[in-house]
């Protein structure tokens, strides 16, 4: 469903806002959050709304243990699919576009088609994750669609390593656990968090996983 929606959303924007695509999508994200906050008839407004418990074949799914295994399974499945894609014509086209768009086009890659596909795949991942979150909490509010939450998600990917499947998992794990570990420093928590992120971005430009795997490859070579 959200795959279809994103397909529709991707098309006009890809065509008309080619250059400022990212800005366009960020703006759209802000708009979505605004609509969710304002249209309280359907969404409960800023207070959020309850979400019915998931019922699978008469089995009422609840409890954090159960959801732990379900989301864990979804993570493994999502990782497996993404890793599969990496070394296929479509995956190579994505990676080629990332490195040099003009060379990718000259190699015969239809840029609009593959960017659209990348959008749709990303949307499906996001919608599955979002649905799981809402169903697990039994509750959802507009903060989940907020601008800061989008920034946080992008930070996870960049920190872990753009273009690396394992990287985004590592990035998410670091960004979730780090603030909790740093609470022992009390008022210095945010300062330290910012400092750690800045330092890792200076010394690990391509993100944690690509930088470390390259260093490892160099060590095994020599």
């Amino acid at each position, binding site marked *: 469903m959200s795959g279809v929606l994103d397909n529709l959303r991707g098309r006009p924007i890809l065509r008309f806002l080619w250059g400022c695509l990212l800005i366009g999508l960020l703006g759209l994200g802000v708009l979505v959050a605004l609509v969710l906050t304002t249209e309280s008839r359907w969404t409960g407004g800023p207070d959020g709304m309850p979400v019915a418990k998931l019922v699978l074949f008469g089995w009422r799914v609840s409890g954090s243990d159960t959801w732990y295994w379900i989301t864990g399974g979804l993570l493994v499945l999502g990782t497996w*699919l993404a890793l*599969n*894609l990496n*070394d*296929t*014509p*479509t*995956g*190579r*086209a994505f*990676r*080629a576009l*990332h*490195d*040099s768009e*003009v*060379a*990718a*086009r*000259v*190699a*015969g*890659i*239809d*840029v609009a088609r593959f960017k659209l*596909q990348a959008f749709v*795949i990303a949307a499906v991942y996001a919608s599955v994750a979002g649905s799981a979150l809402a169903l697990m909490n039994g509750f959802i509010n507009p903060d989940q669609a907020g601008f800061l939450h989008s920034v946080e998600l992008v930070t996870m990917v960049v920190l872990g390593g753009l*273009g690396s499947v394992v990287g985004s998992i590592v990035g998410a794990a670091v960004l979730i656990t780090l603030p909790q570990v740093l609470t022992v420093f009390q008022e210095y928590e945010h300062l330290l968090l910012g400092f750690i992120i800045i330092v890792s971005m200076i010394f690990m430009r391509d993100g944690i996983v*690509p930088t470390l795997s390259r260093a490892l490859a160099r060590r095994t070579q020599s």
Partner: protein
Amino acid sequence: MTILAAKDIGISFGGIKAIDGVSFEVAPGQILSIIGPNGAGKTTLFNIVSGVYNRDHGSVELDGEDVTGLPPDRLAARGLSRTFQNLQIFQRMTAAENVMVGRHLRERCNLLAELFRLPSVTRQNAETRDAALALLDEVGLRASADVAAGSLSYGACKRLEIARALAAEPRVLLLDEPAAGCNPVETEEIDELIRRVAAKGIAVVLVEHDMKLVMKISDRILVLNRGKPIADGAPREVRDNPAVLEAYLGKHGAREAARA
């Protein structure tokens, strides 16, 4: 017989005519070189013919069909490949993967099958990789197949680009300064490589500054100066053309060269 024809191409950037009234034709198996001083518009001409820029006037015909203004990916599907003067390799992919991307048009993309890694995908991948390795062998990079392209030497990257362009099995190959920055041994290898490519019936259009290479392998040479064609002919004719000497050496230099 002509496979690629450019007719009366012109483009301006902010009032400056970068290319003005340039035409050329090339037949299958023929090597056409485009030479000229820096800023003569050689790379701009390449960018127009390969669909990267859109021209102001003129037309491009590929195999008798008008392909003017088609985007690069559609031109690639019709058999036109190119390399770049400023390297455009996929740095974060291995050498073999770079060439495999070049085979994109020869591969079937089926997203669902790919996500679940069905046997058909694995089989196709193996075929593509074999083809890529054969091409790497041809350009002398077989040993670096699984090395990240970003860590290859400049000369190796140049040859990698040629292999990637050949992977699409083109009918016309545009090479933008393939020997730039290469040492004499590497230049010699590229010289042989271009001849082999042409011998297969592929039309080669070459922009190159290495005159020794150009004079040796070209069937015809087109000389540009300030966006205009000033000479067109066999290497021997072009070399003795006074207008060409003047463009390269200036009026005084041309007189000196004539006396020498």
